[in-house]
């Protein structure tokens, strides 16, 4: 807990230094947070190129806001609020009309992107890739806000309050989103038990 609090204060401290013009602090923030942001966006839009572009935009906006930054909320909450906003906009604008095509392409390329585990046999690898495709499809079929809530809850370990701020809704709304999302995922992925 103490380590977490220290980490959060460190983010705010770094961002305040960026506000004062310290470029190395921005580099430090980038190294700390680019992976979670890119991974979150990738799982949201399920397109590698788009997720990288959106992640670039996230950090560009952070940089642009440096002169007016105030540590009124956790840095990660702010970061994921921007990321969620961009992802939801991208999804809403229908730029995912080729998402099925891109999903298929990703699925085909996934076998090369996801380095095959040398400990698995060929058959095991095929089973693994098939299960992975099911998981990705189950997530993609969730409504966008439910998807965002699940990804922040599961992969970023964010609390309900943080997710609520990122999604600009109440905590009770976040709980509702998560419970519905997990109920749907249980029905779609229960056969994997």
């Amino acid at each position, binding site marked *: 807990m103490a380590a977490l609090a220290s980490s959060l204060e460190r983010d705010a401290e770094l961002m305040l230094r960026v506000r004062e013009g310290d470029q190395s602090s921005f*580099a430090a923030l*980038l*190294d700390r947070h*680019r*992976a979670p942001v*890119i*991974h979150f966006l*990738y*799982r949201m839009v399920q397109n*590698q190129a788009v997720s*990288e572009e959106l*992640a*670039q935009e996230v*950090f*560009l906006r952070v*940089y*642009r806001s440096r002169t007016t930054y105030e540590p009124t909320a956790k840095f990660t909450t702010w970061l994921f609020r921007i990321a969620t906003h961009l992802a939801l906009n991208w999804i809403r604008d229908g730029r995912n009309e080729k998402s099925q095509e891109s999903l298929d392409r990703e699925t085909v390329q996934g076998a090369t*992107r*996801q380095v095959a585990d040398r400990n698995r046999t060929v058959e095991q690898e095929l089973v*693994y890739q098939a*299960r*992975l495709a*099911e*998981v*990705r499809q*189950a*997530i993609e079929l969730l*409504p966008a*806000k*439910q998807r965002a809530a699940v990804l922040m809850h*599961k*992969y970023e370990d964010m609390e309900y309050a943080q997710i609520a701020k990122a999604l600009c*809704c*109440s905590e*009770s*709304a976040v*709980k*509702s*989103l*998560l*419970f*519905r999302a*997990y*109920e749907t*995922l*249980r029905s779609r*992925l*229960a*056969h*994997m*038990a």
Partner: protein
Amino acid sequence: MQCPRENGSSAELMMAYTAGALEPSSQIELERHMVACEDCRKMAAQQKAVWDALDAWRPAAIPADFNDKLYQRIAEEAAVAWWQRPLRFNWAWGLRPALPVAAACAAIMVAFLVKEPLPAHLSPVPAEQKVSIEQVERALDDMDMLKQMSLTAPAEGPATERI
């Protein structure tokens, strides 16, 4: 222990249990309950399957040139003269959220500016049909009564947003 499915706490409880986030005493209590409750056992197994499936989904590695591309974009933005930035701004995208509001304001403006005589069936109420003072007083009394009723009505729980 009452079955969590009966008191509406099953989802949150199972999520916490299968994620290993329950207090030890709560975990023991739930496991004792699940010995006899097949529905809860099934739900726990399904939720665990979901966690395991999500754990298996690992995204690709971060591209090596991510930082370089970002710094290049930052440098390009910095190189744009201040007076050129509005020209490069994507107004269609930036103003998108304001478009519905602007459209509504424009419609209201048009409504005020374009004044046409009302059709005969919409003309002002003749004097003999005007509302009496007694009717107004009765309406105000009704409103007071309704207000009193809302103040004394039992408090409702927080509404769940419809997502």
